[in-house]
């Protein structure tokens, strides 16, 4: 076979362009977003967050990237959807009014439909095409198209038409997201992955030892590099965010500034000047060895310098910590009252690991402390696997900026995290 050199040959070597989802962390993992102008399949079991993922993609597209979108729902009505996401601050009716969004609820009742001979789904194409044209949509969501299989009897027509639909979406150049229910042994119940071959994202919601964790994984992304790990993600009052903890580099700055440990003799032992600012200190020892006391000294010293401190405690209430430390002559209450010290107490089993991490992130972002204490970090092992704790906590201490010094201390079990 001969390959002719066309004049435009070199200019054809272009990187796949991306359509950002605006979902915190996801675009980072996906190298910028979803493949622009192509369909992406998002699959997972019931309640795993598919619809919210899809809605976020459209709402962010409309509000932040000037890309209007069409949401074609095969399950929930437009009103139901709007209500479900209103608590996240997504104003669907407002976007519809501004012609940034079209919500079309495709209702199919098997009972009402009699099938009499040959047909195709051109009606669906016309409907979708009209919705796209009415607002100049650049994004389309089909949620969950598999519901069609329950509504129509002739599966072979349906399969042929879906194949044509995905081809048609591609030809229209819209960035499409198709959601599918996870099947037994297949990614989707109806094998939609056969038709959507550009990018496949799997969402998972699992409960291990009664603690729930949500995970996201990019199974396939044709023409693009992407993170292949399973990333924890969470859904809270701010919407959906992915925590690409395992993809964070080791390129943070290292300060050579030293800060006091709060214990003069320990400062002496550490070259006379204490810990490096921005470093992570692991304090390990059995129960009663004095780990919490060492941390209290460190907090006290930082507050005396006028620096802000955050303490995450997992086994005691703030009042307990304050009372206990008073017995060794440290008054933490006055720092709390002056707004320099803030305690965040939560039982480890209250949330999964990523929820703990996210709350820490938020607290740190809001309070902007220069010292953070986790007491004891080993408590988190009770809610997650050791590898998860290592993966989650290690970068957490790196991303908050080089000015943070956080001694992490733990109890009872020896544990050696790679980079703490």
């Amino acid at each position, binding site marked *: 076979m001969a390959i002719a050199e066309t004049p435009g040959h070199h200019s054809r070597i272009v990187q796949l362009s991306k359509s950002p989802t605006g979902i915190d962390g996801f675009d980072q993992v996906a190298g910028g977003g979803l493949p622009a102008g192509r369909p992406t399949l998002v699959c997972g079991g019931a309640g795993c967050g598919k619809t919210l993922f899809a809605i976020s993609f459209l709402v962010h597209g409309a509000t932040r990237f000037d890309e209007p979108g069409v949401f074609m729902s095969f399950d929930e009505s437009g009103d139901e959807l709007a209500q479900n996401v209103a608590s996240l601050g997504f104003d669907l009716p407002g976007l519809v009014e501004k012609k940034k969004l079209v919500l079309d609820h495709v209702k199919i009742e098997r009972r009402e439909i009699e*099938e009499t001979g040959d*047909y*195709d*789904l051109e*009606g669906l194409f016309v*409907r979708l095409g009209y919705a796209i044209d009415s607002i100049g949509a650049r994004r389309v969501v089909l949620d969950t198209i598999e519901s069609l299989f329950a509504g129509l009897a002739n599966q072979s027509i349906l399969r042929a038409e879906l194949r044509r639909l995905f081809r048609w979406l591609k030809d229209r150049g819209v960035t499409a997201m198709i959601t599918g229910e996870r099947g037994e042994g297949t990614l989707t119940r109806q094998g939609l992955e056969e038709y959507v071959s550009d990018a496949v994202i799997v969402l998972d919601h699992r409960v291990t030892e009664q603690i729930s964790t949500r995970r996201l994984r990019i199974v396939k992304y044709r023409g693009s590099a992407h993170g292949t790990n399973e990333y924890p993600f969470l859904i809270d009052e701010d919407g959906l965010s992915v925590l690409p903890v395992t993809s964070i580099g080791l390129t943070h700055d290292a300060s050579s500034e030293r800060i006091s440990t709060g214990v003069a003799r320990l400062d002496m032992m550490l070259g006379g000047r204490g810990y490096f600012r921005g470093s992570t200190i692991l304090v390990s020892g059995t129960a009663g060895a004095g780990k919490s006391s060492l941390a209290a000294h460190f907090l006290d010293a930082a507050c005396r310098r006028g620096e802000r401190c955050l303490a995450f405690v997992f086994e005691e209430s703030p009042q307990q910590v304050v009372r206990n430390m008073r017995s060794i002559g440290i008054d933490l209450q006055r720092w709390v009252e002056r707004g320099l010290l803030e305690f965040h107490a939560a039982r480890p089993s209250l949330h999964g690991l990523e929820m703990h991490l996210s709350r820490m992130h938020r607290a740190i972002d809001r309070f902007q402390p220069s010292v953070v204490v986790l007491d004891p970090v080993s408590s988190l092992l009770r809610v997650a696997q050791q590898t998860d704790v290592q993966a989650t906590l290690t970068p957490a201490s790196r991303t908050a900026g080089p000015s943070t010094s956080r001694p992490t201390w733990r109890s009872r079990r020896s544990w050696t995290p790679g980079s703490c």
Partner: protein
Amino acid sequence: MAVPSAETQILRLYIAGQTPRSIKAFANLKKICEDHLIGKYQIEVIDLIQNPQLAAGDQILAVPTLVRRLPEPVRRIIGDLSHTDRVLVGLDIRPAS
């Protein structure tokens, strides 16, 4: 056209362009109506290529789709209407066997 009585079937046939399938569906429908509903039907043909905005209102997905708007309940019959028996069942002209 006669004023529709309570008995009259108000039928809408949705098609997408003059395809062989839509022509066949219309011919089948016309024949069924002439054979079973003489003088008691109205047929309106809607071409979605010309009126795409009408697809969502009647929940059209497949074409051809025959919608019986009256009498209630609304019925949807999809396909080229070549299975006469099923069309008759769908229009409540013949009870389901």
